[in-house]
């Protein structure tokens, strides 16, 4: 009976290709952060209330050169919010938009004048073109124009 011998050396290229695909390039050597600060809009408050947004989009220049073409992993989003003291019923939410996806987002309610870290979006795609928007919604508190008392800020924690 003839037994067919398998020589590992013949298949080493296949092994390497298989290893490459299972590897998926997810080796992250550097931990980094990007912090952005912005004042949300001045809100013209009418009887039905009003909305002020602060936008924190990520551009090429926000990332090190070395990240070009490399896989990046979001590790958390740290947030700090301001508030509109002249208004009533202020509600705040943080919405994450995947890279270049202005239509797809998930939002999470947060607080005015508070801070925290969210890990809701860690498994979503991250990189250039991703963004966070903080939305403040207020109701009429007597002032026609409502000004934020400070700024909102977002810090993206990521690895590459």
């Amino acid at each position: 009976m003839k037994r067919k011998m398998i020589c590992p050396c013949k298949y080493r290229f296949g092994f390497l290709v298989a290893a490459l695909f299972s590897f998926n390039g997810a080796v992250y050597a550097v931990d980094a952060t990007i912090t952005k600060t912005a004042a949300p809009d001045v809100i013209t408050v009418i009887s039905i209330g009003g909305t002020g947004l602060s936008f924190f989009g990520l551009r090429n220049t926000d990332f090190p050169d070395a990240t070009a073409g490399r896989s990046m992993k979001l590790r958390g989003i740290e947030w700090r919010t301001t508030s509109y003291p002249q208004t009533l019923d202020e509600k705040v939410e943080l919405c994450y938009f995947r890279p270049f996806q202005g239509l797809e987002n998930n939002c999470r309610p947060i607080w005015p004048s508070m801070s925290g870290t969210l890990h809701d979006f860690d498994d979503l795609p991250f990189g250039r073109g991703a963004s966070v928007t903080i939305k403040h919604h207020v109701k009429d508190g007597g002032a026609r124009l409502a000004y934020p008392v400070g700024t909102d800020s977002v810090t993206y924690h990521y690895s590459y």
Partner: protein
Amino acid sequence: MNTIVTRFSLADSRLASVPSSAAHSPLVLPVDGESNASHTEGGTGAISTLSTLARQLSEAAERAEARDTRKVTRDTLASEAYLATKAQSDYEGAELLARARQATGFIDGADSNPFKGLARDQLSLIAHDEGGSFTINERRAAWKELQASAASGTANTANVSASGREIMVSRLFLGIEPPVAKAPMTMLNMSQSAYDFLTRDDRDLLSQMYAYAQAQGADLRNVDNVAGLLGDYRHHNDGRQVLNANNGKGYDLEGYMVTVDFQAEDAATASRILNGSAISSTLVDRGFLRHFLDPGYGALKNTSDLAFLEQMVIKFSAEGAAQISLDRKFASYKSISINDNVVVTTHKNVKLHPFEAHVTNVDGVWTLTEKGKAAGYILDKTTGRLIEPTARPDDQAPPTLGRESPKHTVMDFSADHRDPPGTRWLKPGNLFKLMRNFLS
């Protein structure tokens, strides 16, 4: 402080043990001139002696009960029984078709409502039935009739309804009612008024709420608040875009997990609404109620108390007739800051290690952190690139190459070890060089 378990979760059925008044109400068969009661088929079993509508109502009641008790089996059996019986009678098919057409005509304004005169609990069964026995337009027609009868406790339904609509349009839309805006929330419509996303049925119901609240001398901001919450739910694609704040992924800056809840009084109110009998027949969207009354979704959006919402759920349900007047406390609106109205629990036993970066970019300014310095990195402040002076050149692979060191396997690297950067020489970019060396 130890972990405090969230007070209640809506993932399980809170209605499981609560009998539904609608589901358990004895069915009153129509005895007027409607065709439903007049056609019987003798000798084909007990069920065939009932009218088509009565049997549909019975099946809808069973489905309602199954929904409440999560007895899916019964629901399925009811559907099978329905389908089997339906196939027996061509006449019934014609009758069903005629009524469906009448309902469509009613919705289009060309015909009368086929369900006019039915009891409220029967209307509620039809409107909420998702078993397929009734067409969408039939359900809408039942819903319209239910709404028309909801304000029957007042002197003049038509006048009150018209007045309520005017109030609703004035308060929510500044006098000009827009078409229903389409969810989901996107970057383009984030600033749009949440009221624009209220559906036609929402607007009809809110009109009745305004009429009722005004007649009762209530502060109409109480209704505004309900409208805002419902509109926000619609804006977020019926809540599907909102993440639960109690999902274990929210932390304070010290790394401790944080959860939120309603104040005790509101938590009790939420429990009463969700476990009460009115929820099974209320016109207030039950999906909205279950969403908003989950503290993970609602606690950070609740800037009043839930008592007025509870009154509306009851008033616009099959039990509404028993609620004659609103409490005097609703003559004013209670606005409470979110930060004063939410119970925040910090779980000291659940802590994440703080994220320590090698390099930071704060509003465009690159900085090498102590951790980065300790790892031997040098920062190019123009590009943010980290240079590792001790790093081996790309074309000089280390002698181990992942073969001799038992720790340097592909699996080890994919496990995302937090090794010092100096030892983490394997990168996607030079993996091909590794392959080339390996093959040569």
